[in-house]
């Protein structure tokens, strides 16, 4: 808590002069501690506003996407490890849930322990050999793992081959309340997602979370200060994997059918986009980014052809003008401007 306060004071000193009037109000609203509660309240009240199957469906999809973004935020935002194959964990979670639920005719919820175990294993298998690598090698290797996961799912019999798994049993059903009812399932998803987002945010503020941030800022210094960087990175990876697995479980019971086509590289890139746009490391921003990425295409269906072109250009523009993301975490501002100053000075030096 003390650390939080001190960064806040730095923040106000640095940024106080710039923000006035409406901007200050908006920023204070977003920095408000209860913004999460307000967002949850809006999510819970949404079905009272529109309850068409379509609206409920895209809101559920968006909520699942938020979990993915929150999970990837642990890996990329907190720990600074670029993972381009994150969708593999969604696949592991979804396939584990789907296969077990279908084979034993269990409600999907009961597959939870298996999903968590499989995701931890997947995180270990992918993370253990790769996390000693240089950061940009890691990006490519994770991409490779993502593709291997998809190709494997496509070629094995247990995963249903290219047609995947369909008719996955419902999420849960107790005494006449079928949780597969879209609206009930939406509420359930929102609550699970809210819990996971909160947990991820807490994790970011914990001792481990501070270690992650240290590793992200300067790995060598972190190592020198006695942080076991490999272990810390592996933990970030495993947490990310478990969040992805939760997403996969919800994904499987929401769609009732999964196939390898849902786990292509493009999906990994979309989750990354949400994390980057939202501001790597800032959970509130990432949630907002995830909602934007998953809901905007629904609202702008006519621009479907230009969607990915736009996303690509946005990534470049955001990185060039605001490498910390649109809504970066508090406290990072000071260091960042320094990094930018250095970059600018270096570039100027090159021009002369």
């Amino acid at each position, binding site marked *: 808590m003390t650390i939080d306060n001190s960064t806040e004071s730095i923040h106000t000193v640095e940024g106080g002069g710039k923000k006035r009037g409406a901007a200050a109000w908006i920023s204070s609203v977003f920095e408000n501690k209860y913004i999460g509660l307000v967002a949850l309240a809006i999510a819970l009240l949404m079905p*009272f506003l*529109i*309850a068409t*199957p379509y609206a409920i469906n895209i809101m559920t999809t968006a909520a699942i996407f938020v979990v993915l973004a929150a999970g990837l935020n642990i890996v990329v935002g907190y720990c600074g490890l670029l993972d381009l194959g994150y969708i593999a964990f969604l696949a592991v979670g979804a396939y584990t849930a789907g296969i077990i639920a279908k084979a034993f005719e269990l409600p999907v919820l009961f597959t939870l322990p298996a999903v968590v175990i499989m995701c931890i294993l997947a995180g270990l298998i992918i993370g253990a050999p790769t996390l000693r690598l240089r950061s940009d090698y890691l990006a490519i290797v994770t991409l490779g793992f993502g593709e291997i996961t998809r190709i494997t799912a496509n070629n094995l019999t247990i995963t249903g081959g290219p*047609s995947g798994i369909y008719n996955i049993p419902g999420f849960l059903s107790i005494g006449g309340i079928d949780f597969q009812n879209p609206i009930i399932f939406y509420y359930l998803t929102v609550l699970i997602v809210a819990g996971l987002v909160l947990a991820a945010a807490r994790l970011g503020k914990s001792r481990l979370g501070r270690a992650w941030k240290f590793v992200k800022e300067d790995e060598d210094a972190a190592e020198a200060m006695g942080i076991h960087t490999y272990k810390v990175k592996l933990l970030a990876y495993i947490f990310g994997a478990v969040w992805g697995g939760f997403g996969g479980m919800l994904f499987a019971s929401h769609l009732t059918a999964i196939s390898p086509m*849902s786990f292509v590289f493009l999906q990994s890139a979309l989750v990354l986009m949400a994390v980057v746009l939202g501001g790597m490391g800032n959970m509130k921003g990432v949630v907002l980014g995830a909602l934007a990425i998953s809901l905007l295409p629904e609202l702008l269906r006519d621009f479907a*052809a230009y969607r990915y072109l736009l996303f690509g250009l946005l990534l470049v523009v955001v990185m060039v003008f605001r490498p910390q993301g649109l809504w970066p975490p508090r406290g990072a501002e000071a260091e960042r401007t320094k990094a930018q100053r250095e970059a600018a000075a270096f570039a100027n030096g090159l021009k002369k």
Partner: protein
Amino acid sequence: MNSRKRTLGMLGVATAVLLATSACSGGLLGGGGGDKTDSGPIIIGMIVPTSGSSAPTGASMANGAKMAVDEINKAGGILDGRKLELQIADGACDAQQAVASANKLVSSGVVISVGGYCSGATLPTLPIFDKAGIPMIIPAANSQDLVKEGLKSVFLINGTGLQQSTAALTFIKKQGYKAVALVDDNTSYSVDITTETKKQIEADGTSKVVLKTSVNAGESDYSSAVRDIMGSGADLLYWTGYYQEGGLIIDQLRKAGYTGDIMVADGSADPTLATIAGPAAEGVYATMTPTPNTIKGAEGWIADYKAAFGDDPKPYSTQSYDAVRLAAAAFTAAGNTKTDDVIKALEGIKDFDAFSGPLSFTPEHTLANGGFVILVMKDGDFQLFDNLQ
């Protein structure tokens, strides 16, 4: 404390706004919308890929459906002058996208669905339409999986993988091929056909399957498949994937000196196959339902299509066209758009005049007569070779 007050204020405002707007829309408090009405236009839904790599096929299917809707409306509509209205939603050949689109169509009050191209993306939409009481006439997707669950509301008007492989076997026996190589592209639909064909050839026993293998879609170099085929000593290659890869494989196979015959399944029965494979595509056979240019008397239809959309009809344009007409016929026979009546009417359809021949359904809701014929590639276009009758 100031911030808590503001939070409560915000919460209050948010709640008030949401509740106020919910009163006049389809929210939980506002009562359900989208009831089936007995007047006004009849809304027909169609999920086809309009983005992604299958977008061109999706567009040609949508055109076929539009044409049928326009024709029916011009003739005064059905059920005492009610007009048809077509709503197209993007399935992108992706499960998630297709489910979103299915829900969208359900929300906009469609009474029948006439879409479905990629089997993998069509599967998860079945329970959504079924629960909403919307019968489905699926024009292109033809995986056996679609009818495995026995949903009453699902009707396939494209021959299934089983029917296609039966046609393939008939042709193999007719031509006297001895050694058949089966190659698929590892997608649901394609594997379905190779698996069924292998089973049938082995049960029949007059010829042999010397190779069954898969390739990855999206690559350029298929030398490994070419080696396998050359090494297997096959006198017929049956390729069951899509034309993009099919064209490359045929070209590379011929360049490597393969002298046997080549046959492709309906996913490759597209003139683009010749653009990709070049001269190597000449003489390639295809198992396919009749396409407009192979049907006598369809010249007028093709001209109309060209005039309306400025493009040649593609293989599934006809099936989409027929799906809409079939839907209209079922509504007329049922006398209304109620789910059970429409399903009963579809089950009772006898020898409906479709491009693929007289159409009736089996108890499993697949085509009684698969209607597959053998086409051959001649001068860059597929023509009728053998109607297998």
